[in-house]
C-alpha cells in the first residue's frame, strides 16, 4: 500500500465515523423521551459516544491529511478538493474545542452533519494530487490557508449553534407577523441546506450511473489588436443537460428519461461553456433539493423547523447564544491573522503587492467587516439573542460565498477549478 491509498481509505473511515457520531448525538437528544430511562444518564452516555466517535473520525481525518501530504509531496490544501476536506477537518477541530468548553450534545448534532456535508462536497471535485504552480509553492501560503480555514471553522461552529438557537426560540404557535417571519427565515435556511444536499445527491447519483454529455462552443472574439480570435471550447456534463451552453452544439449526450436533447440554451450573457454547465448544476440542485424537501414535508406534514423545534427544549437559548458568540470570539482573531494578515504577507512576497483587490481578497475583507459589524452591534447596540443569531447564520453564508461562490461566480487569481 502506498501513502495515497492509505490516505483515501482513512478519508472514507473518517466520513463514516462522522456519520455515526452524528447519529450518536441525535440519539442523545431525540432519545430522551424513550420510555423508562434516566434522562440525564441517557443523554450523557450517548453524548459521550457521539463525541468519542467524532474524535476517532477526526483522528482518521488527520491520518488522511498527513499521509496525503507525505504521498503528494506538498501540503494538501492546494485545490478545491483538498481545501474543502481541510476545512471539514478544521470545523471538526473547532467543534471539539467548543464542545470541551460547553459540552452540549446539541452542538454535536448540528456540527457533525455540517462537516459531513462539507467533505461530501469536497468529494465532488477531482481528488488527484496536482502539481503546484510556482506561486503556490510558499510556506506563507500554507500558513495562510490553514489559519484562514481554522478561523472560518469557528464561524461554522458559531453558525451551527446559532441555527440551533433559532430553531429553539422561534415560536411556532404564534401567528404574529414577526414570528411568522422568523419561522419562514429558519425554514429557508433549512431549505438552503437541503438544496446543497440535493446537489450532492444529484452529482453522486449521476456519477454512479455513469452519465455524461459533451458540448462544443465556438467563440469569436476581437482582441485588443483588432484581430479576430476564433476558439473552440468543449465541456463535459456530469448531469443531464437541462441547459446547454450558449450557442453550442451537442457532441454526444446519453439520453435521460427519454430526454435526447437539452431543453434550453443558456442566455447569451453567460459567457463561456462553463457558465452553462454551472447553471445546469444549479438547476439540478434546486430540482433535487425541492424533491427531497417535498418528500420530507409529505412525511412530516409541517415545516421542518417545526419538526426539529420540540426536540430542542432541553437547552437554554442563552447558552446557545453564548456558544455562538464565543465561537466567533475565538475565531475572529484567528481569521484576521490567517485570512488577512498572512494573506497579505504572502501576496507581498509572491505578487509584490500585499493587497490587489482580487475578488477573493475583497470577499475575505467583506467577511471580516461583517463579523466586526456583528461584534460591534453585539457590544454596543445590545444585539443579542435572535438578532445576533441571525447575523451568525448570515455570516457563515458570507464565508461560504467567499470560499465557494467567488470561484463559481467570479473568478480571480485564487480560483481553483470549480464545479
Amino acid at each position, binding site marked *: 500500500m502506498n501513502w495515497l491509498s492509505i490516505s483515501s481509505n482513512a478519508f472514507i473511515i473518517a466520513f463514516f465515523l462522522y456519520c455515526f457520531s452524528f447519529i450518536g448525538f441525535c440519539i442523545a437528544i431525540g432519545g430522551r423521551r424513550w420510555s423508562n430511562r434516566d434522562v440525564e444518564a441517557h443523554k450523557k452516555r450517548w453524548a459521550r459516544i457521539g463525541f468519542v466517535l467524532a474524535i476517532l473520525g477526526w483522528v482518521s481525518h488527520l491520518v488522511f491529511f498527513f499521509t496525503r501530504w507525505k504521498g503528494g509531496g506538498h501540503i494538501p490544501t492546494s485545490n478545491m478538493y483538498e481545501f474543502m476536506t481541510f476545512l471539514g477537518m478544521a470545523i471538526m477541530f473547532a467543534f471539539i474545542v467548543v464542545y470541551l468548553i460547553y459540552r452540549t450534545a446539541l452542538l454535536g448534532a448540528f456540527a457533525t452533519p455540517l462537516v459531513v456535508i462539507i467533505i461530501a462536497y469536497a468529494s465532488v471535485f477531482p481528488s488527484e494530487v496536482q502539481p503546484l504552480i510556482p506561486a503556490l509553492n510558499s510556506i506563507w501560503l500554507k500558513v495562510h490557508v490553514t489559519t484562514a480555514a481554522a478561523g472560518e471553522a469557528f464561524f461554522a461552529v458559531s453558525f451551527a449553534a446559532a441555527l440551533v438557537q433559532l430553531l429553539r426560540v422561534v415560536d411556532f404557535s404564534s401567528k404574529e407577523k414577526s414570528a411568522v417571519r422568523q419561522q419562514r427565515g429558519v425554514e429557508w435556511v433549512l431549505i438552503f441546506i437541503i438544496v446543497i444536499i440535493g446537489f450532492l445527491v444529484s452529482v453522486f447519483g449521476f456519477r454512479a450511473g455513469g452519465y455524461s454529455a459533451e458540448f462544443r462552443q465556438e467563440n469569436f472574439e476581437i482582441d485588443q489588436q483588432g484581430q479576430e480570435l476564433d476558439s473552440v471550447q468543449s465541456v463535459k456534463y456530469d448531469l443531464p443537460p437541462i441547459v446547454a451552453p450558449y450557442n453550442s452544439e451537442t457532441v454526444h449526450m446519453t439520453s435521460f428519461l427519454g430526454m435526447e436533447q437539452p431543453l434550453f440554451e443558456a442566455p447569451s450573457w453567460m459567457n463561456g461553456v462553463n457558465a452553462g454547465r454551472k447553471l445546469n448544476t444549479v438547476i439540478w440542485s434546486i430540482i433535487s433539493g425541492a424533491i427531497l424537501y417535498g418528500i420530507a414535508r409529505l412525511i412530516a406534514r409541517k415545516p421542518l423547523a417545526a419538526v426539529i423545534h420540540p426536540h430542542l427544549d432541553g437547552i437554554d437559548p442563552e447558552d446557545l447564544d453564548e456558544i455562538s458568540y464565543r465561537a466567533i470570539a*475565538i475565531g475572529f482573531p484567528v481569521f484576521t491573522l490567517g485570512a488577512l494578515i498572512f494573506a497579505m504577507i504572502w501576496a507581498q512576497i509572491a505578487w509584490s503587492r500585499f493587497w490587489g483587490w482580487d475578488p477573493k481578497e*475583497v470577499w475575505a475583507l467583506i467577511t471580516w467587516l461583517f463579523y466586526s459589524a456583528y461584534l460591534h452591534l453585539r457590544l454596543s447596540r445590545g444585539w443579542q439573542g435572535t438578532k445576533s443569531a441571525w447575523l451568525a447564520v448570515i455570516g457563515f453564508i458570507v464565508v461560504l460565498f467567499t470560499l465557494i461562490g467567488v470561484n463559481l461566480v467570479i473568478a480571480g487569481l485564487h480560483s481553483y477549478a470549480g464545479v
Partner: protein
Amino acid sequence: MFQNTKCECGHQNPTGTVLCEYCGKPLVEDLPLDSPLEMRYDGVARRSQKDNPALIDRVWNFFSSVKIAVYLIVITLIGAAIGTIYPQESTFINLDDPAQYYRDTYGTWGAVYQALGFSRTYESWWFIGLLVMIGTSLVVCSLDRVLPLYKALSKQQVRKHLTFINRQQTVYKAKLEQNPEEWTESFAKQLKRKHYKVKIEGTALLAEKNRFSRWGPYINHIGLIIFLLAVLGRGVPAWHMDQYVSMDEGQTKQIPNTNYYVKNEDFTVEYYKDEELPDNLKGTARAKLYETKAVLYECTADCDDPIKEPVLTEVDRHDIQVNSPLSYKGLKLYQYNYEQRIRLITVKPMLVDSRTGEKYGPFELPMSNPPLTYTAGPYTLKLSDVYPDFGMDEQNRPMTKSRDPNNPAFVFIVTGPGLDESGEIYIYFPLPNAEDKQLQQMINASFQKSGNNSGRFSFEVGKMENVSFSEYTTYLNVRVDRAMPYIWVGAAISMIGLVMGFYWHHRRVWLRIDDGILTLGAHTNKNTFGIRSEVAGALKKTGIEVDPKALDNRRNTR
C-alpha cells in the same frame, strides 16, 4: 434633557453618567426594571454626552457613535462587494477605451457599471472617503471611551450600592450561615487562587482579574489606524513606485526613473516531469520553477550624459523566483512573468565574396546598441540603418514595426579594395529563417537593380558558436513601497489587541454582607458561562453549593 446627576451617596457626577461613579447606583430613572445593568463603560460619562454641543462637539459626537461606525463598516462592505461584480479596470494591463470594453464584454449592465464608476471602486473618492471616515471614527470613538473607562476602572469603590450588585448578570443572594468576616476571608482566598486581585473593606469585597484585556479593543483600533494611515500614505508618490522591466537574457536595462540598472544574466525554467503529473496533464508543459539570475547596478557616473555610456557598479545580485524577490534598500524586484521568445543577442557573420568564394571576418554584431563601423578582412562596413522589427509600409518601403528586436535587419555600406568610393549597400537579416533569407535576397537584388551594389557580397554565419541568443524574456516588477513597515506594524499591533481582548476576559466580583444576608454580583465583558462556573466553584469551596446556571440573572429577560 435634565437629569439629576448628584447621587444619594453625595457624589456629584458629570452629565451623562449612568451609574454613580462612586457607589454604582443607577442614576437614570427610566432604566428597564430588573434587567441587568448596562455596564459598558461602567456607566461613566463620555465627552460625546456633553450638554449643549457646539459644532465641533457635534462632529465629535457623530464620529464617536458606534452606530455610525457600524453604518460606515456596512456601507464599506457593500461598496467592496459591488466592486467584485465585474473585473476592475486596474486588472487590465492596457485598456484604451474602458467604456467600449465593458459594453462589449458585459453588455448594458457592464456599460452602466463602468459609467457609474464601479469599475474603479477601490480608487474612487467615495471608497477612500469611507476609509478616511472609518479612520476618523476609530480615533474619535476610542478617545471618547478609553479615557473615561480608564478613570472609572482605576478608582473603583469596594462597597457598591445594593441595586448595583443585584442587577449584575451574575447574582447570588442568600442568608449566610457562617461568620461574615471569616467567610469573606475564605472566599477571598478561593478567588485569589484563581488569580483574582481582591480588596476587602469590612464585609464588602471587590475581586478583579484581567483588567488589561479591556484595553484590547483600543490597542486593536490603534493598530487599525496605523494600518489605514499607511494605506493612505501609499498615495504619496515618493513612497510608492510600481514599474515593469522586460529583459532578454544577457540584456541590461535601466529601471525607469531611477539610478538603477538591472541585468538578466540567465533565465531558466524547470518543468514538471511526466511522472510528476496526474494522468490528465501528462504531456503538457507545466512550469515548476522559473528564475532570473539578476544583477542590480547603480549608476555612479555619466548617468545622464547622452553621449557616454553610464558607469555601472554592481550593488546586489539574486536569483529571483516567484516567492523570492531581490531586495535592495527598499527597492524590490519580483519575478512577474516570462515568455518563451527566441531573441538574438549577438551574431558573428562573415562577409562572403561570391565571386571568389572567399570569406572575410567574422565580425561581431550585437543586436542592441550596435557600433557604427566593422572591419571584415580588408573591407570596412558602416552601419547605415537598423530595423529592430523589420517590416514594410504601405508603399513597400522598409520600416520598423516596433523597437523590440523581433526581426532585426541591418543595412551596411561596404567599402574597400575594388569597390567604389561611395561603397555598396547591402541588407542583412541575421535570423536564420527562410522568409528572411528570401527577403534579404530580394532587397539586395533591388539594390543591385538601382545600382547601389554589384551583388558581389553576401553574409554567412556558419557555425552555431557564432550566434548567441536568448530563449526567454523575463518580466520583472520593480516596487518601492515605503509604507510597508507601517502596514506590518499596524497589523501586528491590531493582532495583539485582538488577542488581548478575545482570549482574556475582564472579570469582577462584588459582594457585601448586610445583616447576615450575602449579596454577590459578578460581571464580565465576555464569557458569562465562565464567570458563573468560576463563582460557583469558589462558593462551593466555602461550603455553599449552587448550580452555576442558577446564578444567571438574565433568566427572566429575553
